[in-house]
């Protein structure tokens, strides 16, 4: 999915990036991606697809073997100081300084990124993350969820324009997760661009403006979430029959129908993009066949269904 040149609203531009490890394993293949200023971009993909490698490459943890990346116009290799100063990273693993206090480690991060001490800002960040009462606690005494918040506080301490959240919800309970996503929305509203990976697809569905799907190091889809769901989403019409059927009648064989094992539910799958869904014609055909129904209901595919279907299609093509 190459895009020729980044436009002025692009804050992160990834051009032809590839990563091949010394052993020959190709973790990223010719990735082209533009992240728009102020958006929430969700990067989805199965385990080992290359999500973390892509994030690591942008953040300087991994050196790309081809291509180049710019953050707000600054090349992440040649002009790494300016580029890295714009980026905050919350890693997937809970890497923390176990013996340090929350206050010390967050202030350390701000200094490391070249910013002068700002106790008022750090206090606000810790309060936003419900960490203020833990500020003097050693990190080793905190729960997994609290450690995750500390990592977010560290990443926010230098006021990044671009924030990477690599599986931020992993190991976090429901309440903390909701707090976290509320903070993510606040950050986006304040102008921070957010790129997240998650296994909770409903979160991507709920939060993201755009979705990217990566598989075996290749970016197979990048699309506006609403467009993706409209284009690839499918609806189902389930009809509860008055009398069980032994099989779908031959006269209805041209319709994409599935009959449940008990013969009492007939399911019709249709494309949401088509102007004519074919429902009216189907109902008429059922009536002409003397098949009565007592109830009908429709359901729409979730992002998870779309994701599974995309990855499955790619597997089949491979």
């Amino acid at each position: 999915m190459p895009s020729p040149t980044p436009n002025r609203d692009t804050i992160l531009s990834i051009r032809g990036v590839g990563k091949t490890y010394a052993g020959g394993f190709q973790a990223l293949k010719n990735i082209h991606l533009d992240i728009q200023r102020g958006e929430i971009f969700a990067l989805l993909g199965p385990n080992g697809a290359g999500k973390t490698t892509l994030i690591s490459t942008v953040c300087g943890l991994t050196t790309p073997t081809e291509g180049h990346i710019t953050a707000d116009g600054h090349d992440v290799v040649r002009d790494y100081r300016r580029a890295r100063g714009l980026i905050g990273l919350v890693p997937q693993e809970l890497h923390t300084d176990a013996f340090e206090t929350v206050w010390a480690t967050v202030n350390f991060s701000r200094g490391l990124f070249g910013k002068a001490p700002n106790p008022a800002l750090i206090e606000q960040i810790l309060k936003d993350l419900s960490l203020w009462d833990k500020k003097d606690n050693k990190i080793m005494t905190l729960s997994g969820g609290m450690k995750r918040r500390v990592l977010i506080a560290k990443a926010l301490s230098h006021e990044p324009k671009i924030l990477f959240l690599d599986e931020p919800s992993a190991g976090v309970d429901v309440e903390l997760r909701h707090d976290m996503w509320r903070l993510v929305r606040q950050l986006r509203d304040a102008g921070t661009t957010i790129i997240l990976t998650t296994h909770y697809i409903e979160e991507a569905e709920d939060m993201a403006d755009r979705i990217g799907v990566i598989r075996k190091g290749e970016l197979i889809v990048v699309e506006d979430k609403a467009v993706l769901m409209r284009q690839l989403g499918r609806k189902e019409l389930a009809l509860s029959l008055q009398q069980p059927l032994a099989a779908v009648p031959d006269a209805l064989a041209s319709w994409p129908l599935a009959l449940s094992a008990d013969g009492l539910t007939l399911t019709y799958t249709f494309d949401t993009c088509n102007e004519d869904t074919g429902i009216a014609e189907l109902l008429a055909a059922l009536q002409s066949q003397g098949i009565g129904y007592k109830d009908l209901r429709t359901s729409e595919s979730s992002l998870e269904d779309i994701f599974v279907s995309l990855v499955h299609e790619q597997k089949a093509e491979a």
Partner: protein
Amino acid sequence: MGLNFHAVRAIYRFEMNRAFRTWAQSIIAPVLTTSLYFIVFGSAIGSRMGDIGGVDYGAYIIPGLLMLSLLSESISNASFGIYMPKWSGTIYELLSAPVNWVEVLLGYVGAAASKSLLLGTLILLTARAFVPYSIAHPVWMVGFLLLTVVSFCLFGFIIGLWADSFQKLQVVPLLVITPLTFLGGAFYSINMLPEPWQTVSLFNPVVYLISGLRWAFYGQADVHIAVSTGMTLVFMSACLGVVWWVFKTGHRIRR
């Protein structure tokens, strides 16, 4: 862009806090260990040993013992400082920060060298309680100590980058540095050795360090002070070159 001063200060303070948080292990233990040498070899046995080159034996071994402690502590402090983030995974933050290799060195090696110099001062003050000594060239002594601890902190930093286990961190200080220091004239002048051991000793780099420091204390040395200083400068330059190469290539730190 100029020096990332805030980053250097952040790393330096972080490392110094670590030392003071573990003060018993980082500061008291090496001072006590070295003091025991002063008590046993200086006060108890030293009085029966006579003098070497006109210097009382208890006072003669002070530069060697000081060097023994500073070399192992400099390596240990600096190697541990950079190995811990590698071990715990927090090095991701250092690698993704807008810092260059010089700033990283100023922070980590600067803190490790500060700790070593603090330790050296405490050891010298403690030695005063057990053994009378004088310092002929105090300015030179401070300069030579600074050069030595910075060089060995750089060396320790390289070991920390290279090591992938706690055992490897300990291998060089325990199996290389300590024997070289004991055999490098810490307790004797190499001029007292018969040939060929006198010549063999000249291949021991620690001989030049102890000799240089002893000259600063008592104005006498096994090898010329210019040679000692030159050897230490060469060693420091080699270490700087290795660190520069590691950060340039990302060897063992970047994937």
